[in-house]
């Protein structure tokens, strides 16, 4: 499905609606973002195929985290556009993106310290009539039904991630690995079409890492597109159908893992130029 192993030529990489022939879910078009004059993103562009797992890699300082922050609505780009499922989402607030099915996770597992695992799962449920100020005290039939529906899903997801015994524990009481699982669980509650994962395996032991990898593959099998920023090349090789390499705020190469790994420019970006 991916033909190019050549350095991404900007025109083809930023062409919307396609990603190497497949339908694209996310299009990043010529995005620029500067911090105090320094361009962290300098016209980066690529398209991600729908229903696939894409790895976003690149050396430190390539702009991966900034790009994730721009796509997820935390930062506004200075120039360029982001399209999700064909619609322009540039500069939309995170909660609007969540409503469209685009969510993200964080490198360091974040949570709401005084809330339980179950509350975290419930919180992420979309379309909650009980969150409206005027409906909340009425506790209307629709609000109660929705709450019961979400509770059922939350319990099912907790069971799937083997978090059931921890449902009432505050997230601060969990281990680092369990926090990662809660993060995956609550993201699932949001009924996403695409999840951006920022180093999902950072600081996780190998056996839990394998468990998380299996969960990610299961999610993908259900049709959810994934894009993960990751430094673990073995994991990228194992999980990702498609790889985007960034360097110095631009797209360097896109293609399959083998194509990308064989590319001289990628080797140079990671290992340095031979003099």
């Amino acid at each position, binding site marked *: 499905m991916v033909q190019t192993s050549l350095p991404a030529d900007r025109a083809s990489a930023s062409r919307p609606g396609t990603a190497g022939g497949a339908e694209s879910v996310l299009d990043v078009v010529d995005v620029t973002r500067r911090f105090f004059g320094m361009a962290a993103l300098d016209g980066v562009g690529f398209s991600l195929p729908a229903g696939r797992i894409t790895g976003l890699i690149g050396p430190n300082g390539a702009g991966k985290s900034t790009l994730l922050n721009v796509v997820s609505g935390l930062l506004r780009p200075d120039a360029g556009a982001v399209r999700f499922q064909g619609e322009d989402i540039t500069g939309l607030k995170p909660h609007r993106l969540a409503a469209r099915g685009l969510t993200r996770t964080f490198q360091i597992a974040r949570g*709401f310290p005084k809330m339980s695992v179950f509350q975290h799962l419930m919180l992420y449920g979309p379309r909650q009539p*009980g969150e409206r100020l005027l409906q909340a*005290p009425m506790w209307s039939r629709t609000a109660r039904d929705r709450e019961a529906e979400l509770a059922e899903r939350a319990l099912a997801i907790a069971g799937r991630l083997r978090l059931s015994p921890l449902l009432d524990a505050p997230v601060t009481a969990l281990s680092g690995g369990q926090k990662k699982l809660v993060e995956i669980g609550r993201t699932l509650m949001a009924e996403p079409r695409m999840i951006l994962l920022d180093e999902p395996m950072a600081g996780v032991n190998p056996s839990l890492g394998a468990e998380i990898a299996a969960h990610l593959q299961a999610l993908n099998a259900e049709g959810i597109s994934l894009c993960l920023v990751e430094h673990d090349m073995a994991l990228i090789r194992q999980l990702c159908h498609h790889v985007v390499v960034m360097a110095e705020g631009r797209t360097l190469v896109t293609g399959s893992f083998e194509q990308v790994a064989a590319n001289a420019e990628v080797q140079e970006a990671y290992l340095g130029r031979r003099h």
Partner: protein
Amino acid sequence: MLSYLLFSVTIGGIYALLSLALNLAWGGAGLVNLGLAGFFGIGAYATALATGAGAPLAIGLCVAMAAGVLAGLAITGLTLRLRDDYLAIVTLGFGEIVRLVALNERWLTNGADGMSGILAPGKAALGVVGFNQAWAGGVTLVVLLVWLLLRRLDQSPFGRALRAVREDQELAGFAGKPVLRLKYQAFALSAAVAALAGALYAHYQSYISPDHFQPLITIYIFLAVTAGGIGRPVGAVLGAYCVVAFLEATRFLAAVVPGIEAVQVAALREALVGLSLLLVLHLRPKGILPERIPPAPKAPS
């Protein structure tokens, strides 16, 4: 003595309303509101002006709450980028501005002389004791209703989303929660409850002046919410009654200390209030009735 007890119950109820207001903004959404006395004052002056112009009590209370909502929305809008200490300082400034406006805009508020003869329903008909009984009962009923409403909000998905904003507002956005809307709503509702407390106070006392809206009230209410348990409406109510009971008790306690003058008695009371806050924070940092995590429903087996 009976009138004094009934007076204390009524004031306790008014403090309870203020505590519920603070608990909603601070305990619920994490918005530190040191301008509580300002919203309290706005409610009092709004109803004094409205009923002074001939409106009945019910309209006066509605005008007070509407004024509270407007002030709350304005303050939220002005402080959107502020959190924690910075928000606290700005809201403290707001409270002082309200007091200074009341002090200086004589044409509207009669300045330092205050507004007297505010509509006090039942005072003439019921006599002193009957009036105090009716108001103690009425204010307690209002506390009960507001408590039930806020408890319901607290336990609803709205309360859950608000907690998320309190804990990490950026993450709450990624969880799909409209952070701005939630902040506006929580703060405006909190301001409305504080203004309602002010309106009830104005009608009960039938006299208000800028002196009644000193920042010290805000400190008492923070003490009440901290002692009762931040983040739990029933804790706020309990804390408020405890603080009023404590304040009134120290009146007698300080009087039995030999060899001090009236001014020193007043100072000793303030010192005791400070000491009690330290003790509460030391012994029960989460309050008497701390926030609870509601248990998850059991999975159908």
